[in-house]
């Protein structure tokens, strides 16, 4: 069993065979940095718990394609802030499947929206001057057809 420490002091126990889905943790184990426990200063407790839920499910139900698909669909039904936390954690822990799943989720959300709608939903501030924006729209004219 491997012990993981989140940034806010929570500890989690997980089987090594499951934990190595994270390439980061895998390398730490291989480099013998995992004597007592592995510190993960970039991931808070709540997010780490979610990530562990994902990798545990994907380890145990490896061959159940249908089951994993519906698990994944439910897994990403979280609020915006949590989704981005999971993305950053998946990136830091280097878990490709989780990173792709969460990135695809964000992509699906912006897919059919206008630029204004995307800005609104993600609180993106438009810091272009009207002239700059007009020039950009003209330079890449076809993208805005």
């Amino acid at each position, binding site marked *: 069993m491997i012990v993981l420490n989140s940034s806010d002091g929570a500890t989690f126990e997980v089987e090594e065979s499951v934990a190595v889905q994270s390439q980061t943790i895998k390398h730490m184990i291989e480099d013998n940095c995992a004597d007592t426990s592995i510190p993960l200063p970039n991931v808070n407790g709540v997010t780490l718990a979610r990530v562990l839920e994902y990798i545990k499910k994907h380890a145990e139900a490896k061959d159940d394609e249908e089951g994993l698909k519906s698990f994944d669909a439910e897994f990403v039904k979280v*609020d915006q*802030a949590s989704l981005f936390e999971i993305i950053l954690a998946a990136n830091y822990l280097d878990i490709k499947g989780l990173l792709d799943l969460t*990135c695809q989720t964000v*992509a699906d959300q912006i897919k059919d929206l206008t630029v204004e709608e995307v800005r609104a939903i993600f609180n993106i501030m*438009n810091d272009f001057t009207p002239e700059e924006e007009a020039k950009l729209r003209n330079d890449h*004219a076809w*993208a805005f*057809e």
Partner: protein
Amino acid sequence: MAERNPKCLKASFFPQHDQNPSEKSAMRTEPIKANLSPASADDNCKEDRFSALPDHILFNILSFLRTKEAASTSILSTRWRYIFLDLPKIDLDDYELVNTRRFRGDESDDCYHDVMGELEEKFIDFVDRLVMHRESPLSEFHFSCGCGCLTDQTIVVRSWLSSVLSRNVQVIDVRVKFYGGEFWGPEVFPSEILTCETLVVLKLDGNVSLKVPKLLCLPNLRVLHLDTLTLLGDSTGSTLKWNCPLLDDLRIDLVIFCDVGLVDINLPSLTKLVWASEKDKVVLNTPKLECLEYRFYESILSSNCKFKFLTKADLRCEYPDALPEHLAHELCQLFGQLCNVKHLDLRGCSLESLLREDHLLPEFLNLTHLVLKWTWIGSWKFLEILLWSAPNLEMLVFELMRQFDMASGIHLHCGAKEKPHCLSQHLREVKIMEFVESHQLGFEIVSYFLKHGAGLQKMTIYHSRTSPTKWSSSTRKKLMELSRCSRNCEIVLI
């Protein structure tokens, strides 16, 4: 500034709660997939966590969008301005060019051509910026030009491809369709494409031509699909050789070879081959082949090796009449090399000519599934010979009408003659298609399998599709009452 977004997002912002139905349907055709739960007043009020993500994660997210959509993110804010230009994957389709909201008229409209001309210009401009003026490497280039747009722009398309090739690209997937033009189609694909060191997947499809070098040297290539192209050799007609040590999947479909001599397919790693092009003098040297789909017409390829790992072979003969002597002989040779196969499909071939030279017929020891559709069987004895050579056969599919010479005798139960071993051992399912009620041969054949198939579990008989009536009750009765060796055998009439 009109663009400033509201200070706080309330739950009511999300469109499906707020807008009235008619407004909503004008904006998009499907409802928003709101995986996001509505933000509370304090929650995401100030933070733009999206833009705060590092570049490579933004690339990952945008890579799930088509290039056109990804490009529109460039005006979200200054942070986003150049992101899409460095995306490692380009995915464009000229269908998007045609299918724009602005175009509402029809082709006879005067302004149609102006609108299309303008759009085409913008499209070319856009791709130029993306492909020609970029510095970052490009890993995938997907481009589909199936609507015939850019017919007059073959030089432009070619320049894009040359530029893409110079950027360590790994995947090229291009489909073009041009109207008019020269006989072989314009040379849109630069010939350096066939000597590119970084390519892993290459798919080219289009009524265009491509000059082939004497040696196709693609050291990292795993997948090569060429469709509809014309390959132009030099006029010396020298041998076309391949140096693609990692090539696993090759497809040559409706490709025309012009001025190309012998094609020597020496591919040590090839496992999947689809060959559906007319070319004489083709030699296969593909010892690891597992899956073969071969459509032939007037020339037969030859093989230097028996395919030890072949599991599936799908032969389709498109020659309209009986094959001439020399071709039939070559086909028999090839047929003999397929002896290790598990699944065999012989469409359009003639069993009669394949088995004529039965000294060449090998034993198909691994054959479990045999499909004979539109296969001319001729006489029952040929089918029986084939059954003898496949002692482990488990499933057999063949057709009755037009596949047998109905005039030949129907002597299927000649005395105490021994029956093929597969019948008593492994054969568990038989499907007979195109059953004609009026001919005795059908009943004889069905009876043969039922009587001798000790392990038979299911016999499915499909009524002939050209006959006006369906199964008559007397035929049903007759078939159901035939004696069965295997008591569990189910008979299904469709």
